[in-house]
């Protein structure tokens, strides 16, 4: 059981990294990764929202939508729930951690439309349908791992970008182009983890 959870957690971080392997959540990945500090704050907020969203959407789907045969409402209900949750997180941050609230700025509302969050909530349900042992706890662990994976990708990339700042980049590549090139190289490096988790725990 625990070994299974660890495997899910590690897989979500390394082999199934939502940003670098499944290319979800690219907007904050490129937008907030200029500094390690804000990248860290943003990823923690995303992790929090991911776990919270999964914790709410999974029971909603399983105990409300499925018995009523309303599986097709999945997307719209999930978007609704995530939007409300992000708003809640924003209110909480504004009250208790204003420095993080200021640092995140416009990107906090952007978590609402962050496809990584929606992706995590929908993909865990898809996985649960394919594999009966993938239940609520596994979904939560997967969501947490996805958030940590987002954090790892963000912080790594922020470090890369901080070094890029000091480089003499050809004029035509400055700004977003070199950032995208760097992002693709970081994503390629994550391909190296393929099969690692199975080899470790399998």
């Amino acid at each position, binding site marked *: 059981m625990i070994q299974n959870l660890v495997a899910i957690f590690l897989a979500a971080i390394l082999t199934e990294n939502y940003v670098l392997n499944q290319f979800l959540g690219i907007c904050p990945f490129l937008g907030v990764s200029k500094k390690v500090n804000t990248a860290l704050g943003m990823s923690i907020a995303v992790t929090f929202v991911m776990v919270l969203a999964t914790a709410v959407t999974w029971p909603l789907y399983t105990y409300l939508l499925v018995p*009523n045969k*309303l599986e097709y*409402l999945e997307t719209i209900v999930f978007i*609704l729930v995530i*939007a*409300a949750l992000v708003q809640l997180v924003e*209110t909480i941050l*504004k*009250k208790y951690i204003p420095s993080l609230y200021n640092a995140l700025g416009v990107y906090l509302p952007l978590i609402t439309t962050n496809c990584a969050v929606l992706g995590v909530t929908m993909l865990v349900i898809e996985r649960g349908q394919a594999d009966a042992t993938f239940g609520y706890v596994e979904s939560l662990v997967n969501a947490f791992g996805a958030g940590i994976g987002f954090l790892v990708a963000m912080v790594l990339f922020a470090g890369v970008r901080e070094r890029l700042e000091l480089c003499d980049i050809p004029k035509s590549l400055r700004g977003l182009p070199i950032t995208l090139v760097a992002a693709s190289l970081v994503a390629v490096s994550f391909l190296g983890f393929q099969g690692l988790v199975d080899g470790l725990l399998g």
Partner: protein
Amino acid sequence: MNDILLPILIVAGIGLIAGLGLAIASIIMAVPKDEKAEAVLEILPGANCGACGYSGCAGYAKALAAGEAKPGLCSPGGEAVAKATSELLGVSGDVEYKTALVHCLGSYDFTTDKMEYDGIMSCAAAAQLAGGITSCRFGCMGLGDCMKACEYNAITVCNGVASIDPAKCKGCSKCVSACPKGLISFVPLKEQAVVRCNNCDKGAVTNKVCGIGCIGCTKCVRVCEFDAVKVVDSHAVVDPAKCTACGKCVEACPRHCITLFKVPEQKH
């Protein structure tokens, strides 16, 4: 009928619950807004330049409203803003005008480059190589980081040294933080003698690398009747509060690195 009604009810119900939850949360966790600070923020120019020493206009407005800061620190706003804020807050506000000054005169007439620099045209980059590209390790390299930082086109780089036009300087301090050598600092906007050298090496070393650098000979100290000049870290420093702009130190300086600062006409 049920096929349509049930989904509508479920989605509307979730929306209603979420909306109510958010409304309650926003009431419970409402952040009290400082009305005074908001009013002050309206008056401030909104340039967010940081000349006041606070993090942008919002930070300054907050400090003003809390009574922690004095009005008149806002250089871009000048007298009009100082007057408006002091009226609003009911305190007196005298404006301290100041201007940024480059404390170096080491143009190519007096210094040489010790290397042929072919890197990024930025002082910050050049300063990492062997203490900078100019012969004097404290001197202006003239690659214009301050010029790029200035939003008011007040800075020009000519013959390897930057100079700031006090008529255009708004005192926003962007150049101060841009200079990797720390050569730019504020002086009050009044007639005074200023030492245009920041070299902390001993006189003999300074003499080798620069034709105009202060060698710390203390002639200016002896000639000053108002005790305004001191030699600190092997170079002279004028205390602007004591200086009367009599010009004696300017005449006495054998290196001509003390100049008389004049207030530009339109700033009186």
